[in-house]
């Protein structure tokens, strides 16, 4: 069974998110991954560096990895329990949205908008 989370916020329309619970019955390991496209690799890296500073609160229960290729930021979670995965993913999404909105408002493309 694969669930697809749809981002309601317009700024995250480019988020592709899939939660793979197929192995939940036989294997306690749950995974969840997504990609976000940014206008440049530099901006994708800025977001990755920002979100990397805060470690997962329960590293023994939830593991998070991030990587940047071009303007694409890929994030994946691994957890032993759906409850922990949901909590981590949810609070991470809040911060990802905030970081992305900050770039949209104060990043390179916003300069013209601000002075216009």
């Amino acid at each position, binding site marked *: 069974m694969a669930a697809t989370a749809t981002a309601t916020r317009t700024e995250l329309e480019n988020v592709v998110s899939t939660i793979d619970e197929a192995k939940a019955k036989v294997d306690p390991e749950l995974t969840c991954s997504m990609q976000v496209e940014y206008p440049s690799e530099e901006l994708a890296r800025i977001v990755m560096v920002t979100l990397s*500073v*805060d470690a997962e609160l329960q590293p023994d229960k939830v593991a998070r990895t991030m990587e940047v290729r071009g303007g694409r930021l890929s994030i994946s979670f691994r957890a032993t329990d759906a409850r922990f995965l949901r909590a981590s993913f949810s609070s991470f999404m809040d911060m990802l949205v905030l*970081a992305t909105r*900050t770039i949209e*408002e*104060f990043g*390179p493309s916003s300069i013209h908008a601000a002075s216009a």
Partner: protein
Amino acid sequence: MIALGFEGSANKIGIGIVKLDGSILANPRHTYITPPGHGFLPRETALHHQEHVLPLVHAALKEANITPDQIDCICYTKGPGMGGPLQVASIVVRILSQLWKKPIVAVNHCVAHIEMGRVVCGAEDPVVLYVSGGNTQVIAYSEGRYRIFGETIDIAVGNCLDRFARVLKISNDPSPGYNIEQLAKNGKEYVELPYVVKGMDVSFSGIESFIEETANRKLAANECTPADLCFSLQETVFAMLVEITERAMAHCDKKDVLIVGGVGCNIRLQQMMQIMCEERGGRLYATDDRYCVDNGAMIAYTGLLAFAHGHATPMEDTTTTQRYRTDDVLAVWRGVEHAPVGKDDAVNGVSGKCGVADLLHTSDTAIASN
């Protein structure tokens, strides 16, 4: 030098822009106000901050009439405070730091209150009473740090007032404490309440439980009015605060008092403290809600003091923490007044070598080992 500061440790999100001389170019903030009978919870407060932080940055830059390239450093509250709300400001700061190529300075919220009070009032070296919804401490500067001479052993005085406001369903707009203060002006009968001073420390949770029980019973029996209860609660808890502040003044031989923190704008508390200061031949320094209540300028100013002394926080250390003791911070900008402290001292944030240390609560571990 100009600093941009972010404060979001409790129910206010504030952005300040200040110069090193203490002049404030902008200091907008937005408060999360809950309905009567309700307090603010971490998740809802964090969502409030997420919604308001970016518009406030725009507003601050516009009001100060500066562009990002004129900023020297970006400061944020590292702690103490609520985890979720604290994280919001830190995320925005990390992004802006990289976009604008500006260094970050992490700031202790309690120290920021003290420095803001000192620069606004011009108080040189006072005993500081820091009273808010989350903190209650009597502080004095000694040998490189702001030392805690006395504090609450359970809830903060502001939390005691806030919770009582919820019992009476008093409005949280602009703040529960302000509305209790207004109501207390009409109080006539003093209702006897527990008075809990333990050495240099105070306790409020028992008083809060007691008045909660008393309120429901006496109000139902028409034995007193809500105004009487507000009046009695204020008189009791403020008298306790004045007592431990006076004892701290005697311990460290200081004449002046500075009141900071949200409860610090209470005029009745200021009056009572003023009487005590006059009797001791000292002065009371206090400010109004613009600087007492959490704001971005206090974070910007304190971060700028550290930055001007060569301090900045590397990106990987720009985390937040719910617990962050006032005396963990080496106040480098005040260092010239005393001999430098030992290197180990600075690294570990634990003191105990100085003579007066036995009187002080230098850290959580120090208390535990006593």
